[in-house]
């Protein structure tokens, strides 16, 4: 609150118009979703489109209920969520640890720089078949996939974050006689928490890509598996249902990271 004096009429009008505008945005958002679903259903019922290849909302709901009754729905969601969470947690942790090693040794950072650039531009999905050969046809390969997709980009962004920490803050610590370990612990890491969380946010999305692609290649369970299986047997209801669940799960996980960010960065 910039001032505590009684609020003027003009300011009240301003606040009201702000609120009205916000409500209009939300109403439009809901309308867009509902309209899209209604139009989709209508088009399918009236045979403007062929629900066999486009599916339809009521079909998706039916599939959802069937999967729920079978009890397999939660197993599939659980498998994919587990792979993704393992992938981005490991990717962020390992990426940060490697970034610390590079910060510690300028020599090593310079030596490894071209390799990191090449690895960063490589589409990590291409490593899929290799990972399967090395780690077997199972969850391990999929987690590795989810991890690799986010690892290099984490290393590069966190390392850049470390390098951008204010020289004067480091100098201040050095003037107290701080060791390199203390500089890491007291300034480099805490100052880079926002960078690490930004990396985490990107990694959540990337790890979904890794996990789903991994499931496309090898799995016997998971949302990626359902999508591939549904596509192969032409059950588009199943494919669409899985995609929608995926949307919701990915959005929820992103929100969790945002909540975590607010908790950790309360000083901002």
């Amino acid at each position: 609150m910039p001032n505590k004096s009684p609020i003027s009429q003009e300011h009240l009008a301003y606040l009201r118009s702000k609120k009205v505008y916000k409500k209009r945005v939300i109403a439009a958002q809901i309308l867009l979703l509902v309209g899209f679903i209604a139009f989709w259903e209508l088009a399918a019922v009236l045979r403007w489109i062929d629900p066999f290849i486009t599916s339809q909302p009521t079909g998706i709901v039916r599939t959802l209920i069937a999967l729920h009754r079978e009890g397999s729905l939660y197993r599939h969601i659980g498998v994919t969520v587990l792979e993704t969470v393992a992938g981005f947690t490991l990717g962020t942790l390992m990426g940060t640890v490697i970034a610390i090693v590079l910060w510690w040794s300028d020599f090593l950072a310079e030596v490894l720089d071209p390799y990191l650039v090449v690895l960063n531009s490589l589409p990590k999905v291409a490593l899929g078949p290799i990972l399967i050969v090395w780690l077997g046809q199972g969850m391990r390969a999929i987690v590795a996939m989810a991890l690799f997709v986010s690892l290099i980009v984490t290393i590069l962004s966190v390392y850049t974050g470390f390098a951008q920490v204010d020289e004067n803050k480091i100098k201040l610590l050095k003037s107290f006689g701080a060791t390199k370990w203390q500089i890491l612990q007291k300034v480099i890491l805490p100052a880079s928490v926002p960078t690490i969380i930004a990396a985490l946010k990107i990694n959540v999305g990337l790890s979904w890509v890794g996990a789903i692609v991994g499931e496309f290649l090898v799995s016997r369970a998971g949302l990626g598996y359902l999508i591939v299986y549904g596509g192969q047997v032409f059950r588009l209801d199943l494919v669409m249902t899985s995609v929608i669940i995926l949307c919701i799960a990915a959005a929820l996980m992103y929100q969790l990271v945002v909540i975590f960010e607010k908790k950790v960065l309360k000083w901002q």
Partner: protein
Amino acid sequence: MRAGPLVRIENVSKTYHSPEGEISALQDISLNIAEGEFVSIVGPSGCGKSTLLNIIAGLTEPSAGAVYIKGQKVTGPTSLVGYMPQSDQLFEWRTIWRNVLLGLEVLNKVNSETKMQAEKMLRTYGLYEFRKAYPSQLSGGMRQRAALIRTLAINPEILLLDEAFSALDYQTRLVVADEVKQIITRENKTAILVTHDISEAISMADRVVVLTKRPGKIKNIHKIILTCESHTPIGCREAVEFRDYFNRIWKELDVHAE
């Protein structure tokens, strides 16, 4: 035991090397600073005045010569010296209290005694109520005070102020310089201030050292005696001698707009 000056700078030179060549930043600087003295160092930009401060702080090694504090040669940072960098450099993610303890943490000296000292200073200088606040919640002047307490918490004998107020706007700067000077006087510390602001240098110091353009050499040393009642930096700016010192130093700095 009262033998010799607190700080003895002996024939200090510094050369920087880079692939483009070498730059001589300081040449043959010798200066003694007595206990309790406040010395300002002014010079044209790039004259190596901050380098000199870094050498005294043990952050930079001189190419030749040496600095002695209490007769001991400086080979690295010691807790005899408190260094105040440009702008306050409070850590945004730490509360004021944890910022104040930073130096003690690094030195592994956080104990009930040092904590009590720090707490007492926070009370004396009006920051105790803000000990749980984050730096972003404080005004520029309060932040500067917190930064000074952080430096004083390790109980140094010499304070090095490296353009410490340059990030503040003019009015805040005057007030903060006043406060800092009073605190330094009250705590009985020796101080060396590097600044490009001639008025600031004169108003705070007992002596003003003028450096030449790069490579920095000592051009002149002015003993500052101002007749003013309040003996605060702001009050001293009113003194009749002030203009005179200002003009002399200004001429010595030999500044041309290029």
